[in-house]
């Protein structure tokens, strides 16, 4: 046996040892590099490859009426997209057999669900691109039907959308939301801070099969849903009022019409109807001038409904009583040569102030109203709220226009007594009658009851104290006079409701055209019921009525809406009688 020299063995051991040590050192080096030095970067790349960040959308709050009926809510809608490059025939099992469905057939099926034509769909899916939108904002029913078709090259992109379940009911008030979720008009815009939530964000890791890796979810920020906006309106009454106003606008061939129902003792707006009305579900179909709310945004010369205001100022200052006499001619020649005439031909009528209102005599109110100086009358116009926005502060609300009394010319000084030379919004005019119905206290109209957060807390809009415009006794005398208008007036009588005592006043205002007035009118009727203890004020206005040029065109709508209000709120018929006030002498 030949033994290896000891020196060789030691040498070999040394070589192997060095090799092993080098290998170990190399491994250790790589280990240290992987585990310690580069670990952060490697982990980062790895996490980036697996992690997904997505927005957790906050749900926009609902808009509800005074009874909790949902007027606007958020829903999920879907954009239907395709990858044209993947479009191909598919195989479907029909009656246990594999059947090939051609691209044409698939397109026909899609078109049928989406309400499109097959040609439209074929055009959208032509080409070799990775993306093509077939239809946007498809509802859940169509989405569900499409899914059942099981077409692999269709993709669905869910997104939040706004639904107005009752369509145009209160549509002009609520406004609408753009396709990108931006509020564009109305309460949606004004109360966006209440309705809009705050989107959250979530990051998690997922495997190659797209399934989330357990316990990897990291919610960076939870979404905070929007709050609920509660309105004062009654949606049933709102619908009925809109029906009446739309029907009347159609019958009168008018440009537009408004109808307001106000709770006299609280200032709550129970209905604010307009025609044309806007359906927020399809707002892009409407003319831009019809998209807002004319009740708050349009001002016009109100005409004779302002005579009530002048009469109340006369009584409040002690310059007249409901029985104060005057002789009202058909035409009144003013010292500077101008003439004021009544709407109908008559002789020198011996009327009381009540009779002046009953007959809506321009000459009569100017003769009696002249007992008050310009400043006093201007002060009353201001105290009644003219020239100022209401506390509703509706988006784009108009303040109307009353020029300072010193700037009134001689004619404006006179005609302002019967509603010319001043501009008011329908809501301002209705609130004059609310003041009279509420013992002379003008309240601010209330459209929004509050913003209710998820914890049930209701944040009400800042309230404003009522303003005592006229004395309670003046308010009562004015109501007594207005009751005679409905009891005895030629036009007023047509506003009467069987079984109820109603007080109100008509208005037939000429409309400015150039430097003068045109032949079309803004016709109104504003009243309250029951007159013995007024609970509700109804105000209707129709602008540029072409078929009826007097307030006779407005009273049927007032009557229908007021009757519905009395039915809705179960107001028992009146039992007493109107005050005994002379109208003539």
């Amino acid at each position: 046996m030949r033994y290896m020299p000891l020196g060789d063995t030691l040498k070999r051991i040394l070589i192997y040892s060095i090799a092993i040590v080098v290998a170990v050192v190399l491994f250790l080096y790589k280990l240290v590099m992987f585990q310690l030095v580069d670990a952060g970067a490697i982990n980062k790349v790895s996490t980036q490859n697996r992690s997904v960040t997505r927005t957790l959308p906050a749900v926009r709050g609902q808009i509800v009426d005074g009874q909790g009926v949902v007027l606007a809510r958020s829903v999920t809608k879907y954009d239907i997209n395709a990858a044209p490059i993947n479009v191909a025939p598919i195989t479907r099992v029909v009656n246990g057999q594999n059947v090939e469905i051609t691209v044409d057939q698939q397109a026909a099926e899609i078109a049928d669900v989406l309400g499109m034509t097959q040609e439209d769909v074929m055009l959208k899916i032509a080409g070799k691109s990775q993306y093509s939108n077939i239809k946007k904002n498809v509802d859940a029913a169509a989405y569900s039907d499409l899914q059942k078709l099981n077409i692999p090259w269709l993709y669905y992109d869910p997104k939040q959308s706004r639904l107005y379940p009752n369509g145009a009911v209160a549509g002009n008030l609520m406004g609408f939301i753009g396709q990108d979720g931006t509020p564009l008009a109305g309460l949606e815009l004004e109360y966006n801070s209440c309705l809009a939530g705050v989107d959250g964000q979530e990051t998690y890791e997922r495997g190659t099969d797209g399934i989330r890796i357990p316990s990897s979810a990291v919610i960076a920020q939870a979404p905070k849903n929007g709050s609920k906006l509660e309105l004062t309106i009654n949606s049933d009454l709102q619908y009925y009022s809109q029906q009446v106003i739309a029907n009347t606008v159609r019958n009168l061939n008018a440009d537009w019409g408004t109808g307001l129902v106000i709770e006299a003792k609280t200032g709550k707006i129970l209905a604010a109807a307009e025609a044309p009305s806007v359906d927020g579900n399809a707002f892009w179909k409407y003319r831009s001038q019809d998209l807002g709310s004319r009740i708050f945004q349009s001002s016009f010369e109100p005409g004779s409904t302002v005579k009530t205001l002048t009469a109340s100022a006369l009584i409040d200052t002690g310059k007249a009583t409901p029985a104060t006499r005057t002789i009202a001619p058909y035409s009144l020649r003013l010292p500077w040569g101008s003439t004021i005439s009544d709407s109908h031909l008559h002789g020198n009528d011996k009327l009381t102030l009540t009779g002046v209102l009953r007959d809506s005599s321009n000459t009569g109110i100017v003769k009696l109203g002249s007992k008050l100086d310009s400043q006093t009358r201007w002060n009353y116009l201001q105290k009644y709220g003219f020239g100022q926005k209401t506390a509703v502060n509706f988006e784009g609300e108009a303040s109307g226009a009353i020029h300072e009394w010193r700037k009134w010319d001689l004619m404006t000084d006179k005609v302002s007594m019967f509603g010319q030379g001043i501009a008011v919004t329908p809501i301002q005019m209705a609130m004059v009658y609310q003041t009279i119905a509420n013992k002379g206290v003008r309240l601010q109209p209330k459209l929004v009851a509050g913003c209710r957060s998820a914890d049930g807390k209701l944040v009400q809009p800042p309230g404003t104290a009522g303003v005592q415009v006229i004395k309670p006794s003046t308010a009562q005398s004015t109501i007594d006079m207005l009751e005679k208008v409905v009891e005895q007036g030629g036009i007023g009588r047509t506003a009467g409701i069987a079984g109820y005592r109603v007080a109100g006043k008509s208005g037939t205002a000429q409309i400015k055209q150039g430097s003068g007035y045109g032949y079309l009118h803004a016709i109104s009727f504003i009243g309250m019921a029951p007159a013995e203890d007024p609970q509700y004020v109804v105000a209707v206005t129709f602008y540029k009525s072409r078929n009826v040029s007097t307030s006779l065109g407005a009273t049927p709508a007032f009557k229908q809406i007021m009757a519905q209000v009395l039915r809705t709120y179960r107001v028992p018929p009146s039992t007493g009688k109107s005050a005994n006030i002379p109208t003539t002498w």
Partner: protein
Amino acid sequence: MSTLRVAGTARRISQAPRTNFLEIARSQVASRRFSAPVIALIGLLAIQGLSLVLGALISQGAYNLAHLKQTNHEISTSTEILASQVESLSSEANLADAAHGLGMVANTTPVFLRLADQKVIGKPTAAYASTGTVARNLVPNAALSAKTNIAQIKLNAAAQAAALAAKKLATPAKVATSFVAGTVQNTNVAKQVSGGTQLASNGGLKASPTH
């Protein structure tokens, strides 16, 4: 060497019982030394195994979760579809149209009965289409996804009316039959009487002669 051997023997003899004791003690220590790493290893393996099983279960849970989320999405979609249908059917526009289609008219002259003095307030008057209806729906609603099937309601009402008429016609024949089957009729009467007595004894009210 021999000295050593003798000494060794002598030690072995003199310490024989202690040697056994020491051996036993040494073997216990050895078994302890052996079992600790084994137990640790087994524990480690058990923990690893358990974590593997748990990992697999959690992974399976993730798949279940994904599946349940999909189911949840499908149910949410169905709920959304049904909710919009209910909203459409209960919307003012649909109800007004349905009421109009069925010939309903609102009475514009309500009558009230005041309980305090039992006075009737208002004059009862029939409702007329000319005063109680406005017009067909003029308030647009693009979201109306379902409408009341008025034709179906009319058909159902007609069928019910026909069934009721047929029942009325059949009633005399039924009476004749019950006379023939006297026992059955008597039983029913007995039940009615006993029921009536019970009512009277309970509330002092007379039993209603009709059902």
